[in-house]
């Protein structure tokens, strides 16, 4: 029984609550770094790391932190973990760190992390919080990878820098420009809506401010 609930916490991040498309959270990195698959995956992994650490810590200290200062405490914690992730990327994968630029530090204000800390980890013990973080984090990484895949195929005719479309293919420059990110994201949200309507007859969507 306990295993079932844990599995449910994990699974819901993959489809039912998949972050960018269903919850419309964390839209800035989703749009900004997905001009190739590898950037999307790197960004997703960095977010997953921060989300996991933040959820564990918030869950562990949930009974100690007074209610009035909890948001401030969470933000400082998240900022610390983001600093760690940023320095790790800069030391181990300099080209990726360069490509992601200021979007790694911007994980601090990624609503997904604060929303999970506030909405889940502060009410639940450590184990469910870990599963929640893994589910949402992997869901987020997959979403970014899909966005990156579509934009890389049409924008460069390649996947992971390996050319798959021949010389006959004229790259769609718009796909790697900012406008392409908005279009791809818009159509993917519509696709998820379509699938939900087919599945359950209704669409679920909330916007983070």
């Amino acid at each position: 029984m306990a295993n079932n609930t844990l599995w449910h916490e994990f699974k819901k991040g993959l489809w039912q609550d998949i972050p960018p498309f269903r919850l419309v959270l964390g839209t800035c990195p989703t749009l900004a770094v997905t001009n190739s698959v590898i950037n999307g995956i790197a960004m997703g992994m960095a977010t997953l790391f921060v989300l996991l650490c933040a959820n564990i810590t918030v869950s562990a200290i949930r009974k100690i932190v007074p209610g009035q200062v909890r948001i401030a405490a969470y933000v400082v914690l998240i900022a610390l973990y983001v600093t760690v992730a940023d320095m790790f990327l800069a030391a181990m994968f300099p080209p990726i760190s360069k490509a992601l630029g200021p979007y790694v530090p911007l994980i601090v204000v990624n609503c997904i992390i604060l929303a999970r800390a506030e909405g889940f980890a502060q009410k639940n013990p450590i184990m469910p919080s870990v599963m929640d973080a893994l589910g949402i984090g992997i869901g987020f990484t997959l979403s970014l990878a899909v966005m990156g895949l579509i934009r890389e195929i049409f924008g460069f005719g390649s996947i992971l820098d390996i050319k798959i479309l021949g010389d006959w293919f004229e790259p769609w420059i718009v796909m790697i420009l900012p406008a392409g990110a908005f279009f791809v994201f818009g159509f993917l949200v519509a696709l998820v809506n379509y699938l939900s309507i087919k599945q359950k007859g209704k669409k679920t969507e909330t916007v983070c401010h």
Partner: protein
Amino acid sequence: MKLILIFISASLINNFVLTYFLGICPFLGVSNKTEDALNMGLATTFVMTLTAAVTWPIYTYILVKFNVPFLSYVAFIIAIAALVQFVEMYIRKSSPTIYRAMGIYLPLITTNCAVLGLALFMVLREYNYIESIIFGFATGVGFTLAMLMMSGIREELEFADVPEVFQGVSITLIIAGMMALAFMGFAGLIRG
């Protein structure tokens, strides 16, 4: 001359919302009505200008001087949160009218990535103090502009017959894409 270039560049050519995707959350969330969009834009512009004015000295005179620039993310986010809190307290005391118009948006601004992004870009591009303040103000103007245009289009959209799956966030994102295409037209403004 450089200040004018920074202003045009930050507000039109490299518009934060449409080219760097910063501040998308309020852009999608608060752009239903033109009046709300304008108030949100003004509040954000105000906070952005102050943020640039406050974080630049913190970075240059504290973090760099004591050789701890790696603490900049923590320092910036605390500075922004504290700043927003003070602005809210000051406005509530000094002008209830403005507070009623802008008050509810102020807490949201703390988690607006455009504000933190502004502080990060300012450091990355090594602007001096005056340039940073102009940059902060111009970014706010660009944000307000994008918000206003978006809310205008969305008000018209209420009467349009949008297919069900595209309603809501989806159509808003596609419109934003078209706006981003239009804003690319400004790219030739400076070099040309």
